[in-house]
């Protein structure tokens, strides 16, 4: 077994958890209190009225009312045209429009923008991000991600993964390693950052991170945000800064293949940028920002293009407004 294999095996042994290890909520709340930590839950949304209500109810009931693990539950919305914000507020979440947070810096489209602005808006020492489209929501989606950060001060960043397939109907699917993970991210990590392959689901939208880490990371505003975080933190702190928790299964809406192409394109942009920034490739040509797909109508083939530009927000700590609000 190579040294690399040994390091990965050791890390899997010590830094990979199953949610059932954190079943004792009273103990977890006690440890959080003893550590003097505050925890914010952030749910980024865009038109999620079908699932947001249930998420808020479950998190508020289980992790605020029953067991005071979370100090705030916030929905950061990109401008939903449905009743997402109304429903979230009606069940007790704090709701914010992303465009109204740090408005002097403008508003950009993309989930990464919401995640970035959440760092400014929310108060917690730990921020736990959970996507809004989870159909089988459970309190473990937050508690089992923040637990390693509470119990192990050296861990900085905890990712969720889901490894047990479920029997599901046609438009739902279990999340193992997703399709983009398996055919894009895992091969890239294997080539350039092999230790990061130990993260079973690097694109998972559920993760908990310490504020000191989040505020120091640049934020791609689109699809590349998760991959870029992993690379940046890995370069600065190594694999031992990470942990991952098995949450068993996650059911959500399946994405059409055409959307996966756009996602992969955005991730590649962020990835290439980091290869260049970290001096891992000598030279890259100017990369095109136009993603091209084709659709057929009879015997006619038509180009469908979309400009995908992975713009990045600077580390939050560089903003004076942030430093003032958070006393940094």
């Amino acid at each position, binding site marked *: 077994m190579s040294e690399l294999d040994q390091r990965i095996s050791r890390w899997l042994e010590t830094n990979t958890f199953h949610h059932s290890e954190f079943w004792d909520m009273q103990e977890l709340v006690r440890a959080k209190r003893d550590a003097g930590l505050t925890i914010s839950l952030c749910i980024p949304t865009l038109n999620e009225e079908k699932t947001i209500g249930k998420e808020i109810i479950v998190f*508020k009931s*289980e992790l605020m009312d029953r067991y005071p693990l979370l100090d705030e539950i916030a929905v950061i919305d990109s401008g939903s045209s449905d009743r997402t914000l109304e429903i979230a507020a009606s069940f007790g979440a704090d709701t914010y429009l992303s465009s109204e947070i740090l408005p002097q810096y403008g508003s950009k489209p993309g989930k990464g923008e919401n995640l970035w602005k959440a760092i400014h808006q929310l108060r917690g020492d730990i921020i736990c991000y959970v996507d809004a489209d989870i159909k089988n929501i459970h309190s473990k989606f937050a508690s089992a991600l923040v637990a390693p950060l509470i119990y192990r001060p050296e861990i900085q960043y905890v990712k969720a993964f889901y490894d047990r397939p479920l029997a599901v109907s046609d438009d739902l699917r279990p999340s193992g390693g997703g399709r983009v993970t398996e055919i894009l991210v895992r091969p890239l990590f294997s080539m350039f950052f092999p230790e990061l392959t130990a993260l079973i689901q690097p694109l998972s939208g559920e993760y908990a991170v310490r504020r000191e880490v989040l505020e120091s990371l640049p934020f791609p505003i689109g699809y590349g945000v998760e991959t870029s975080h992993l690379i940046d933190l890995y370069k600065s702190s190594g694999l031992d800064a990470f942990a991952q928790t098995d949450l068993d299964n996650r059911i959500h809406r399946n994405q059409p293949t055409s959307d996966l192409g756009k996602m992969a394109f955005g991730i590649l942009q962020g990835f290439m940028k980091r290869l260049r920034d970290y001096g891992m490739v000598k030279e890259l040509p100017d990369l095109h920002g136009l993603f091209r797909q084709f659709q057929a109508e009879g015997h006619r083939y038509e180009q469908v293009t979309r400009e995908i530009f992975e713009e990045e927000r600077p580390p939050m700590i560089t903003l004076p407004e942030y430093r003032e609000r958070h006393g940094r």
Partner: protein
Amino acid sequence: MCKHTAKARSDGAPLTHREKLRRLREILFANVVMAGEIPAPTGAERRLTRFLSDRFTECGLANISLDHAGNIAGMLPGRVGRRTLLVSAHLDKIWSETDDHTVSVGAGMMSGRGLADNSLGVAVLATLPLILEELEIDLDANLVLLGTTRSFGRGDLAGMRFFLENASHPIDAALCLEGIELGRLSYSSLGMARGEIHVAAGSGELDHSEDAGPGVAAILAGFIVALRRIEECESPTSRILVGSIEAGSGYSVAPRSGTLRFEIRSREAGHVARIGKEIAEMVATTSIGDGLSASLEMIAHRSPGDLGSDHPLVHHARETLELLGIESHVAPSVSELALLLDRGIPSLTLGITKGENRHSPSEAISLEPIFDGLAQIVSVLRFMDEGKPS
């Protein structure tokens, strides 16, 4: 003994309680979601039992126990403890393990399989200790909270039946919880029997030719006509409901067997048994052709019972509903209430909220009226605690 002065009309407590209970909104709704997303077909309620058991443990209930029928019970000891009250909800749902049990929460509504029957009832049972704590109500009587198994169909109320036959404390009064419909006031039970007529071909080849006999499906259809004839003679005091007919799986292949399920209901004592006997004779004497056989299996029985519309408990429940501005409607029951009344236990079945599409995949419950339902339950429980409904 009457420390709580549970005078629904004069002290207006249900109205105050309704408002106070909104503080438990997320806890209750989360319980509905969680109970709703756990499959619990009749006879396979174990995971839901576990959920309820965990909730009872978290609330500090005493004597939490799983009995031989799979029921889960916990007790909130009373201040005096001389009497014992029972609040129950059946755990089983009509849906199979593999059906999608995802719950959706919208503005003012929740939808998902089995929410009305009976995830909401189970969730209220799980939340009841917190409800009483929130309202600072200490009952004099012991309060047993019971999630029962095997209520539906062939289950034939086996859970409640086992509990009543083996309960260590005699039950002085009982309340059964059903998700819908708010305003439902069940204080009587219909006499009821359920049966299945099975028609089957022998082991030989079936005749598929054009001049073959009527076949299994046609014979079952003939039995439906015969049941209707019997019903016509017994109407209006008794009814025969045909619930389902099952035979074959294609278009052109004669089925080898089939089943017709029916239910006899009657307000009159003895009528159900008499009609059952008539059906048995009908099945035994009907000529159904060579190579086929028919048999009758009776699988469930209830005796009619009635607390009486002038019973103090019924009177109080009706007054409470009036105070809350809810129209009451009397609905005789064929479920757990029948067994309780049969044992002479003053009992009611109450609905908790309004809903729609019961027993469909889009079954839905309204959220806002739930607080009326809770206030009603608390008021009735306090009245029972005063020892009046004896």
